[in-house]
Every structure is written in structure tokens, then in C-alpha cells.
């Protein structure tokens, strides 16, 4: 944006015109489409932050417009940030385990823990190491969920869904879809084998590969979230592995035959965190937004977003009884006790896992 403004001030030469046009093109692509007025708050977030019910109360209270740019994957977020000028963005939602990576690039503002409602948040989330770098907090967890199993209650034995052995149960031959994120899928297999996901080594990969390949007879399809949801809803499969509340909770109010759970052997968690950009010119407003999202009402809205449902980080989130039932709210203490976050692996293990995954798809 700065490049564009400066180029307009100068005499418009062919070169400056081209530079300006390029800047405008980048700005129109990268920045949120809605207005970019000085008082606006620009947030780079996941799709669950775009709901009117979440944003409208904040906008009305502060008399500002929240411009939302949604993205998927930390890599995409970093490329968007790279194409932006400092100050273009105020708030970031990030896959919480990636916080040290983003903070290490100097992009995040340290957070004052005293100004955050940490006591209202689930301690299993707030205490996670990846929220801090060198003892300084850079992210606060806002929402989480699990990689587990989602299913059609009318077609499966619900007791089977509690065991990781369902992944190989011949009773469900050809009736299983797998959400295609290979990393947690293989971590779930590790959990079923009694290996802690953080301890997966190169030596463990041959046995994990063997177990993964052994799943293939049960697998009807492998796809992204929308594809596996479609397969479940259309009756092509009865089970989604590697998916849980984020795959079916939003559908359950109208399709009560769907449900989800995690395995007794252990659960694997995903956690999303809220951060404030160090280059933001509206840090106070940005921290107000963070607190708004973390408030009980904000958390209720975020948990039941139109994009996807998942667990709020705030213990006091405003949820109806029906919503709590869908999110298995009463079971969260037990779920959290036996779950671990899915964190980043070493690059060489990750590369080997992708090779094994490709072999599995091709088998």
C-alpha cells in the first residue's frame, strides 16, 4: 500500500504507473475485499471467523469495520503476509503449533497474559508450549478439535467407533472415507500402536506403513473435508477416519444420524490460536478483538460457525444444550485427558510420511 501511495505522489512516469498498477493489483488480491479505511481492523483468519454473528457485536461496539481475509494453511498465510506491507494486517489466526515459526519471523506482538481471560480457558490448551517462545506468549488458543472418527449411527455399531481397531475392522470393508491430511492420519495409527505422536521416529515408519497399507480394503475414498462429508451424506461410506467434530457437527442439527468421537486409545488434537501482528497500527483494537473472540458469547459464535463447528477454548462459552450435546461438551474433560496436540514433525520424517501416504493411495 505504501508503494502505491508514494508512486501517486510522484510525477506519473511510465515506470511509476506500472509500479502503481502492479501494487494495486497485489493489494486488490491480497487485502480483504471490503473497505480499507483507516479505522478498519484487518484480520487474516480461518473461515470460521467470517460469520456476522461473531463480527457484528464487535463492529457495533467499536464502530469499526472488520475486514476478513480467509486462508487455509500456514504456508498460504505466510505468502499473503509476504506480499503485504507492515501494518496491513492486525490479527492472525494460526494453527497453534506453528506459532513459534511465525513468531520467529518477527511477525507477532508479545501478549500481556494479564489482559487475557486465561483463567476462563481450558488449561490443557493455554499451557501448551507452542503458545510461547522464550517464555513470551505470542498466541492464545481460541478453538480446538480432534482427529478421530465421524460416522453414520444408523449404519455402524457405535461401540466399534470408540476403538482405533475400527480402522482395520473387516466389518466395514469398503465403507470408510479418510480425510486426506496424511500427517494426523499416520499419527492416529501410531497412537493405536502405543507410540506417542511426538516420538515417531524413522524406525517406527515401516511398521506404521504396514498398518496403513492394511487399512486399504476398508477404504472407499480419500478426500478433502467437503469430499468426505459428501461421501458420508450420500451414503457412499459410513465412517470418516481422521475426521471428527469438524467434519459432521455442523450437519448434525439437520442430520441427527451423524455423530463423532475419539478413540479410547488416545485422541489427537488440532488447536487454532489468535495472535496480534507486531506491525499493526491498531494493536489496542486488535487486542480488543482477541478478547471479543475469547469472550463467552464470542466463543459460542465461533464454536458453531457456519464454516465448521468445533470446541471453544473458553469453558464458559455460551452454547445451547443441543449444541453442547453435538460437541460432546460433557465428555471434554475425559477427551482432553487422553489427547495430545498434533504438532509438527521433523522435515525428513514428514517427507517419508508423504511418500508412504502416496504409496498407500496407489496401493
Amino acid at each position, binding site marked *: 500500500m505504501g508503494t502505491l501511495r508514494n508512486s501517486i505522489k510522484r510525477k506519473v512516469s511510465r515506470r511509476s504507473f506500472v509500479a502503481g498498477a502492479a501494487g494495486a493489483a497485489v493489494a486488490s488480491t491480497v487485502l480483504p475485499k471490503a473497505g480499507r479505511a483507516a479505522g478498519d481492523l484487518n484480520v487474516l483468519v480461518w473461515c470460521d471467523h467470517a460469520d456476522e454473528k461473531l463480527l457484528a457485536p464487535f463492529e457495533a461496539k467499536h464502530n469499526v469495520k472488520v475486514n476478513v481475509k480467509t486462508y487455509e*494453511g500456514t*504456508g498460504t498465510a505466510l505468502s499473503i503476509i509476504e506480499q503485504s506491507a507492515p501494518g496491513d494486517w492486525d490479527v492472525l489466526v494460526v494453527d497453534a503449533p506453528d506459532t513459534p515459526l511465525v513468531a520467529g519471523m518477527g511477525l507477532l506482538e508479545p501478549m500481556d497474559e494479564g489482559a487475557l481471560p486465561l483463567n476462563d480457558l481450558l488449561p490443557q490448551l493455554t499451557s501448551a508450549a507452542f503458545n510461547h517462545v522464550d517464555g513470551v506468549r505470542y498466541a492464545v488458543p481460541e478453538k480446538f478439535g480432534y482427529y478421530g472418527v465421524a460416522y453414520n449411527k444408523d449404519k455402524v455399531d457405535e461401540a466399534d467407533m470408540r476403538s482405533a481397531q475400527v480402522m482395520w475392522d473387516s466389518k466395514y470393508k*469398503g465403507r470408510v472415507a479418510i480425510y*486426506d*491430511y*496424511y500427517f494426523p492420519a499416520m499419527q492416529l495409527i501410531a497412537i493405536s500402536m502405543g507410540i506417542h505422536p511426538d516420538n515417531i521416529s524413522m524406525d517406527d515408519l515401516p511398521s506404521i506403513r504396514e498398518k496403513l497399507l492394511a487399512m*486399504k480394503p476398508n*477404504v*472407499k*475414498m*480419500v*478426500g478433502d473435508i467437503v*469430499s468426505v462429508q*459428501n*461421501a458420508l451424506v*450420500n*451414503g*457412499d461410506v459410513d465412517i470418516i477416519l481422521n475426521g471428527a467434530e469438524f467434519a459432521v457437527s455442523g450437519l448434525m442439527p439437520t442430520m441427527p444420524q451423524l455423530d463423532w468421537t475419539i478413540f479410547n486409545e488416545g485422541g489427537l488434537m488440532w488447536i487454532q490460536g489468535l495472535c496480534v501482528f507486531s506491525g499493526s497500527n491498531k494493536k489496542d483494537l486488535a487486542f480488543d478483538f482477541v478478547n471479543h473472540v475469547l469472550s463467552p458469547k464470542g466463543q459460542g459464535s465461533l464454536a458453531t460457525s457456519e464454516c465448521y463447528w468445533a470446541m471453544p477454548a473458553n469453558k464458559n462459552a455460551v452454547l445451547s444444550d443441543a449444541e453442547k450435546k453435538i460437541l460432546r461438551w460433557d465428555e471434554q474433560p475425559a477427551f482432553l485427558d487422553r489427547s495430545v496436540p498434533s504438532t509438527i514433525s*521433523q*522435515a*525428513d520424517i*514428514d*517427507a517419508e510420511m*508423504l*511418500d508412504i*501416504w*502416496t*504409496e498407500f*493411495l*496407489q*496401493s
Partner: protein
Amino acid sequence: MSPSSAQMKRRAGFDFTRWAIHPALIFTVVFFALPLTAMVVVSFWQRVYGKLTATWTLANYSKFFAKDYLLDALLNSIEVTLATTAISILLAYPLAYILAYRIPAHWQRFVLILTVLPFWTAYVVRSYSWLLVISEKGILNVMLMDIGLINEPLAMSYSRGATVLGFVHFFTMLLTLTIYANLVQIKSSYRKAAADLGASPLQVFLRITLPLSLPGVAVGAFITFVICIGDYITPQILGGGTEVLIPQAIMLQVSRAANFPMASVMSITLMVVVVAVYFISAKHLKMERV
């Protein structure tokens, strides 16, 4: 007109032509030649511990040709593409023939519009629509069960057959257009002369119409091959991911591992296949005939 002014005009005309070429040339260099060069260079680099390193190596090529599950992606793509092209030609040729020779001229425009209707639908929407038709609770299974032809739903979705079905739906229309455009250019006097000389309708078709329409078939088949072998969406939605085609293997390397060297190797291999197919079919590719 003095020689000097004519010379100036020629020069002015020459300058205009030169300027007119520049945008296309710049576009091609910036958006094709440079990225292609970058892709070739990166294919000889490596991704070590998550970082791209500019050390020259053939390791990515060795790995691609040594690992069955990677090479199978290319072979799967070739098989699916050949099946799609063959089936599409078999369906498109009769349709184009009827369109060109059996439909009255004043109806041909309307029927042509109907023929290109699938092009008006977005690729993703078209693929998901097929899922609604062939899934276990889909229209086709429900209909077959209602009329008593089957007792259990047929497993049609999420298979290679479903991918080919989605492709054929699109490419039959494309091939119909190229073959039709060729057929209507064949002078009717050729067929009339052959008939007058005692040729049966089958002989007229086999010895006059078919040979003369082959350029249209070749161009359509080539375009089908090129688009089909590089398509990611249709196999991703309809194929169910239980076997991987080369575009899906490329996307896995890019989106999940940011392994651009390996993705570049796969992309270059795909380009080599397309170029080889071009040279094989080059003598039949007469674009002026379609």
C-alpha cells in the same frame, strides 16, 4: 508519392507490426518461458530438511522412475486419458455425423448450442453433479432399484470408472465440435460422385467421409489428451483418491510437502508425454480443417 514517403510508410507499418507482436511475446516469455525454465532448474535441486537447496542432482528423477507408486501415477494418467479419448471419439463421431448430415441445416445451430451446454457449467459443479447421479443414494441407483433391475445399489462412485465418466461427458462435446467442423467442410459432391459410381453408403463412409474427417478427429483427440492428462479436479472429486493420477501426485508434493523439485520432475515428465503425443499425431493435426 515520393520514394522517401513510401519508405516512411513501410517503416511505419513495420514498426506497428513489431509493436503489435511485443505484448504477446512479452506475455509468452514472462508467463511461459521463464516459469518453464525455472521449473527445469528447480527439478535438479533438492528439498533438504524442509528447505530448497540449489545443489544440482538427478536424485529427484531417479526417485520418480525408481518408485513404483510415483511412476504408477503417470501410467494411471495415460491409461485414463487413452480410455477417455477412445470412448469420447466413439460417442462423438456418430453424434457429429448425425449433426452434420442428418439434421436439417436450420436446426443445426440449435442442436450445436445443446451440444456445448456442458461447457457452460463450472468444472467442479459438473463433477459434483455426477456424484449425485452415481452415488449409492444417487438418482441412477434409486431408479434402477425402483424398476427392480438391481436389489443392492451399484458401487459406481469414487472409482476410475467414475473419473472416466466425468471426463467423457465433457470431452465428447469437445470432440463433437471438432469432428462436426471437419465434416461440414467435406464437399457433398465427393460422396455423390462415389455413390454415382456404385459405392454403397458404407463404402462411401469408409473410403470418403472417414478418411477426410480424420484431421478433425486427430485435433479433437489431441486436445482431449492434453487437457485430460493434466486435469486435477475430475479425478480428485470422482476418483475418490484411492488411486493417484499424475496431477494429484504433483499437488500432493506441492500442497502437503512444498517439495517443488519433485513436483517439477513430475510436471516435466508430463510435458514430455504431451510433446511425444504431439509428434506422434502431428501429421494428422491440420488445424485449418477444424
